[in-house]
C-alpha cells in the first residue's frame, strides 16, 4: 500500500535454553497497522523488542528505511514503545511523564562537508507545553496534567503511556499487549481509540497481542506466530477465510478441522463422501486438513443433508446457539440461530465456499475436534489470563 519502512531479514534469536525466533522474515510498511498475534511464548514480544532495540538478534538483519540498525540503541531509534504494564514514571505527574521525551531535547543533524554531526538541542518550554497539551487532548486526558500516576485508573494510565510514546512523533509506535490489563468494555473502547489515533497521526503501529478478536478488529496486516515462526501473514480477512494450516485455523476464531482427501481439483472427500469446494492445485488423492467454520454450516432436515449427525450439546450464546453435533464420532461445533434439542438427528449442507482446504502440517490432528467441548470452553474463558511471557525473562 505504501513504502516499506522496517524489514526483518532472516532474524534468529537463540538463547542457551532454546531458539525463540526461528528465521523470521517480515517487512512492515509505512503507516500500516500490523499485529503480531500468537499464544504466549510464540516470539511476538521478542520480535517487538528487536524492533525497539532492546534485543539484537543472534543472527539476521534489522533494517529501518534500508539502514541496518541491529546495534542502534533504543534511544537513537525513531521508534517508541507502549509497554505492557505501561512503565509510567511514578515520581512524575501526568504532564511530566508525557513531557519526558521532549525534555531530553531533539536531535538536530548538521551536515558539514559531507560529515553529519548530531547533537541534542533543548526544546523551548512553550513548545513542550503545546505538544504535551496536544497529546493529552488526543488521548482525552485534558485536565489530568497535575495528577499523580498512582491516582489514575488502568485505562487512564494506558492513555498516558500512549501519549508519552507519541509525543516524540516517532515513525513507528510499538505496543506490547497494551490492553491486556483492561476490562472487556474498556478494551473495546481503547481498540477504537487506538485505531483512531493511528489514522489521525498517520504513523505505523506494530501491535502485539494474543487476542485474535483484537487483531482482526484493528489491523491492516496480521502476522500469526507460533513456536518462534511466522505461520501466516495476511489481511484479517485472508487470515480468517484462508488459514494456511490447522494452527492458524484454530487460533483465529472457531473451526472444525477434519481429515480429508483431495480427490480432484475442487473436490474433497470427507467421511467417505465427496464435497464440491473451491480449492485446487493439490495432488490427486493428497491427504489434507479441511476447515469448516461453525457459522458456515447449514442445518437441514435429516434426510436432505449431505451428512447426518446427532446433537450432543446446546449452549445459548445470545446471538446464536453453539450446537455440538456428533458425525461418526467426530464432534463439530455449529453456530446456528435455530434451536435444536440434544438428541435430535439433523442433516447438514455445506456450500463449496464453506469448505477451506489446507495442506497437512505439523499441526494436523492437534486442533479442531470439539469432543472435549467443556474443556475447550475453559480454555476460551482463560484467554484473558496469560502468564508472564517467557521471553520477558531474557534481559539483554
Amino acid at each position: 500500500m505504501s513504502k516499506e519502512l522496517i524489514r526483518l531479514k532472516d532474524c534468529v534469536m537463540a538463547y542457551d535454553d532454546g531458539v525463540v525466533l526461528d528465521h523470521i522474515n517480515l517487512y512492515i510498511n509505512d503507516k500500516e497497522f500490523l499485529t503480531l498475534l500468537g499464544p504466549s511464548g510464540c516470539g511476538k514480544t521478542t520480535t517487538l523488542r528487536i524492533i525497539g532495540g532492546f534485543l539484537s538478534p543472534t543472527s539476521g538483519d534489522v533494517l529501518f528505511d534500508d539502514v541496518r540498525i541491529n546495534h542502534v540503541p533504543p534511544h537513537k531509534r525513531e521508534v517508541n514503545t507502549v509497554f505492557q504494564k505501561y512503565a509510567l514514571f511514578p515520581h512524575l505527574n501526568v504532564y511530566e511523564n508525557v513531557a519526558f521525551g521532549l525534555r531530553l531535547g531533539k536531535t538536530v543533524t548538521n551536515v558539514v562537508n559531507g560529515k553529519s554531526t548530531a547533537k541534542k538541542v533543548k526544546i523551548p518550554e512553550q513548545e513542550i507545553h503545546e505538544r504535551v497539551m496536544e497529546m493529552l487532548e488526543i488521548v482525552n486526558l485534558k485536565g489530568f496534567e497535575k495528577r499523580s500516576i498512582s491516582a489514575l485508573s488502568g485505562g487512564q494510565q494506558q492513555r498516558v503511556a500512549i501519549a508519552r510514546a507519541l509525543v516524540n512523533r516517532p515513525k513507528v509506535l510499538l505496543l506490547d499487549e497494551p490492553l491486556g490489563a483492561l476490562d472487556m468494555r474498556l478494551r473495546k473502547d481503547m481498540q477504537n481509540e487506538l485505531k483512531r489515533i493511528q489514522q489521525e497521526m498517520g504513523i505505523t503501529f506494530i501491535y502485539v497481542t494474543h487476542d485474535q478478536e483484537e487483531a482482526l478488529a484493528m489491523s491492516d496486516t496480521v502476522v500469526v506466530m507460533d513456536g518462534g515462526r511466522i505461520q501466516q501473514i495476511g489481511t484479517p480477512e485472508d487470515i480468517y477465510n484462508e488459514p494456511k494450516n490447522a494452527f492458524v485455523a484454530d487460533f483465529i476464531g472457531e473451526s472444525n478441522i477434519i481429515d480429508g482427501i483431495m480427490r480432484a481439483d475442487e473436490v474433497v472427500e470427507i467421511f467417505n463422501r465427496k464435497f464440491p469446494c473451491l480449492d485446487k492445485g493439490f495432488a490427486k488423492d493428497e491427504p489434507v486438513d479441511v476447515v469448516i467454520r461453525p457459522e458456515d454450516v447449514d442445518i437441514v432436515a435429516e434426510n436432505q443433508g449431505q451428512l447426518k449427525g446427532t446433537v450432543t450439546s446446546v449452549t445459548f450464546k445470545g446471538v446464536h446457539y453453539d450446537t455440538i453435533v456428533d458425525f461418526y464420532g467426530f464432534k463439530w461445533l455449529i453456530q446456528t440461530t435455530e434451536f435444536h434439542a440434544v438428541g435430535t438427528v439433523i442433516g447438514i449442507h455445506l456450500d463449496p465456499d464453506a469448505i477451506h482446504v489446507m495442506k497437512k502440517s505439523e499441526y494436523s490432528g492437534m486442533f479442531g475436534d470439539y469432543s472435549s467441548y467443556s474443556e475447550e470452553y475453559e480454555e476460551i474463558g482463560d484467554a484473558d489470563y496469560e502468564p508472564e511471557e517467557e521471553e520477558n525473562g531474557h534481559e539483554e
Partner: protein
Amino acid sequence: MKNKRSLLAIPYVGWMALFVVAPIIMVVIYAFTTADFSVTGENFTRMSTFTVIFTRSFKLAIIATLVCLLIGYPLSYAMAKEGKGFQRVAMLLIMLPMWVNFLLRTYSMMSIMENNGLINQFFAAIGLFDLINHVFGTNIQYFKMIGTQGAVVVGMVYNYLPFMVLPIYSTLIKMDNTLLEAAQDLGADTATVFRKVILPLSLPGILSGVTMVFVPSVSTFAISRLLGGGIQMLLGDLIEQQFLGGAYNPHLGSAIALVMMVIVVACMWVMNRFGEGEEQAVML
C-alpha cells in the same frame, strides 16, 4: 474484630511506653531541673561551653555520612545490576563484619591504626618512611592515626556503611526494569536514565541510608573514645561523662541529649523536605 486485632499491639505499646516514651519524658524533666529538682534553664545556658564538641560531632557525622554515600551508592548499584554471584559475595562481605561484636570491631580498627599497628608496620616494611625521610630530611617512624578526626571518620564509615548500602540496595533491586527501558525508549542515554529515573526513584533509599548512618554517627561515643584517642571528644562522650564519668551531672547530660535530639530531628525533617523538593526539582 478490628478492636480485637489491635489488642495484638499491646506488648509493643507497653514496651514503647516503658522504654521510649518514659525515658524521653524523664530526659525532658531532668534537662529543665537542677539537682534538687527546681526548674531552671541553666543547663542550656551552660552548653555554650561545648560549642566545639557540638560542631565537631556534627562535622564528623556529616563527613562520615557523605563518605558512606559515596562508597555505598556505587556498590549498591553494582550489586543491583550485576548477577546473582556478585550480589551474594558482596552481601556476604557487607554482613560479615556485622556478625562480629561492635566493640570488638572497633578495637581491632584501633590496633590496625595504632602507631605500631598493622598499617604503619606495612609502610615501614615497604620502606615508605625511609623514603620520605630521605627525600624530605624528616625523621618519622609512623603515621599518627589514632587520635585524629580522620580515624574517627574511618571508624564511623567502617561501622555504619552497611546501613547505607542495605536501604539503597533494596530500592534499586525493587526498581522496575521496564521503567529504565521506557526512559531509553524515549531517548535517554545511560547517564540520563540514571539522572532522571534511577536517582530520583532511589531517593527514599538514600534518605533512609543517610538517616541510619548520620544518627548513630552523631551520637557515638565508643568510636571516638577508641579511635579518637580521648582527644576527639564527641557529644556522645560528653553525655556519657555526665552520667557515668567524673563530671557526674545527669541534668546537664539530659539537656545536652535533648538539644542533640532536637537538632537531629530538625536535620531529618529538613532533609526529608529537601528530598521531596528534590523530586519536584527533578520533575521541573
